């Protein structure tokens, strides 16, 4: 209907329309771009990003023991696994796993399991680090918030969590020291 009006009024109106559309478009895009600094200011700041690695000495952790360390404000579970636990983790069929992943792909050394101790459902810290904790139906970890069960490789087996407990980037500096991040 705007076109009909411009044609009726002659050529001058078309040029005016073009100017109006161009101005509106530039103004809209410009405003949208100007919003970015405000939005981005809410992303992690430089000091938050800087605190991104942690070193851990594994020597004092006996077989069958777990420790929890902090990395980027999150708990990281480090478990010195027993032979049975490793065997249990490796004998599972893929079909029994909601998020299939081989135990071999989740560890650098089979006895050391390192993973972020944050339930992939809604971010609670699963239980199972202490000997007295409930470990769930698969003898790994159990999230008390909404009932997710993880196995001895930290893989999700039952409950609402969609994925396995994530393995952070880490490296062995020596045989008994790791650097997370």
């Amino acid at each position, binding site marked *: 209907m705007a076109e009909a009006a411009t044609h009726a009024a002659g050529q001058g109106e078309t040029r005016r329309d073009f100017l109006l559309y161009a101005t509106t478009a530039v103004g809209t895009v410009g405003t949208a771009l100007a919003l970015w600094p405000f*939005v981005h200011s*809410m*992303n*992690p*700041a430089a000091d*938050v990003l800087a605190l991104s690695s942690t070193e851990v000495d594994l020597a004092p952790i006996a077989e069958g023991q777990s420790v*929890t360390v*902090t990395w*980027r*404000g*999150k*708990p990281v579970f480090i478990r010195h696994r027993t032979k049975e636990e490793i065997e249990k983790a490796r004998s599972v069929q893929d079909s029994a796993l909601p998020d299939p992943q081989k135990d071999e792909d989740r560890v650098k050394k089979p006895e050391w399991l390192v993973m972020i101790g*944050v339930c992939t*459902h*809604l*971010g*609670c*810290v699963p239980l199972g680090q202490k000997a007295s904790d409930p470990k769930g139906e698969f003898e790994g970890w159990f*999230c*008390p*918030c*909404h*009932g997710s069960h993880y196995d001895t490789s930290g893989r999700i087996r039952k*409950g*609402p*969590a*969609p994925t396995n407990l994530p393995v952070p980037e880490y490296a062995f500096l020596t045989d008994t020291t790791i650097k997370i991040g």
Partner: protein
Amino acid sequence: MSGEFNNKTIKWVDDRLPIFTMLKHSAVDYPTPKNLSYWWNFGSLAGFVLVIMILSGIFLAMNYTANTSMAFESVERIMRDVNYGWLLRYLHANGGSMFFIVVYIHMFRGMYYGSYKGPRELLWWLGLLIMVAMMATAFMGYVLPWGQMSFWGATVITNLFSAIPLVGDYIVTWLWGGFSVDNPTLNRFFALHYLLPFVLFALVFLHLVALHAVKSNNPLGIDPKGPQDTIPFHPYFTIKDLYGMGVFMMVYLAFVFWAPDFFGEPDNYIPANPMVTPAHIVPEWYFLPFYAILRAVPDKLGGVIMMFGSIIVLFFLPWLDTSKVKSGRFRPLYKQFFWLFVIDCLVLGYIGAKPAEGAYVLIGQIATAYYFFHFLVLLPLIGKIEKTKPLPHSISAPVLKGGGIPAGATAKPMEKA
């Protein structure tokens, strides 16, 4: 216009800035259906609670520190050292619960009497936006004392957004300003918790503008036929609202003075610890029905969609309800299902407070299914098959003997008092 004012100063101001005319128009002369019941008290009551919340909140903010290493202690200082700090905090904390009680009753009243039906669709929408803004404000306010429930509540709720495919994790990091709920999160939540009540205030203003354009619904759900069906807001409803406020204050202050932690969680008196999740995380009571819906679905994304869906479906209520009759008083079938729906919401609230195991899971799933069944199947259907009772001719008719039209009412409307 301002010829109505005798006072010279008022007249002088009003000629230049017509605030007195506006006030007279909307709070004094506003023609109100004369049959409003006490269920109509809850709107003004909600506005009253908002004022209490803003006032107590401003004074609390003068003593609160939004830093993870100081927040918990600053709240304890308010409780122990600040003069009347305990009163301010308990008024604010219990005021939050009262706000939701009042608003939920206000909404159920709207549902029973069909107050969302045309021409009040936008009035209903603004009310829902007020509810959503209230929920965001309440959630962020609960994080500020930085106790265990504050921290873990914030963690669980912000993690809901991680369910969004592809960009979920980026959104959560952006919300946190880091890689977990931490100091940047607490800071922004405080900023937003202070901002949102003023947004709420603006929404309440628009809610009132819309209300005064379409006028109040009433228990009969029929429009006033003329001045004989309405009375001026002042003094009839100002006094009725004041009376309601008095009763409300007795309930509210009973909690503040004798059971100030009734609605709270003991775990929130333990300082936040990012390494230990409390054994049993529960949100504040007013979120429990929605929390139950979230947990009813064994899939993360599915649960989040259902939870947000349970609020979004309310926006479609004016079109899902196909009945031409507004008030539940004349809808024998709807009336029964309305109460079933109320019970369903209470069941959901109960399930939300229980751990997600055993029979609670199944009951939660049935109650969730019924919630959506009510809106998506029952409401469209009932409107089609229900045989409604005959509507009275006017608001005055049922109270006058014989129930007919008062003699001469149509021909010569009564003069407004």
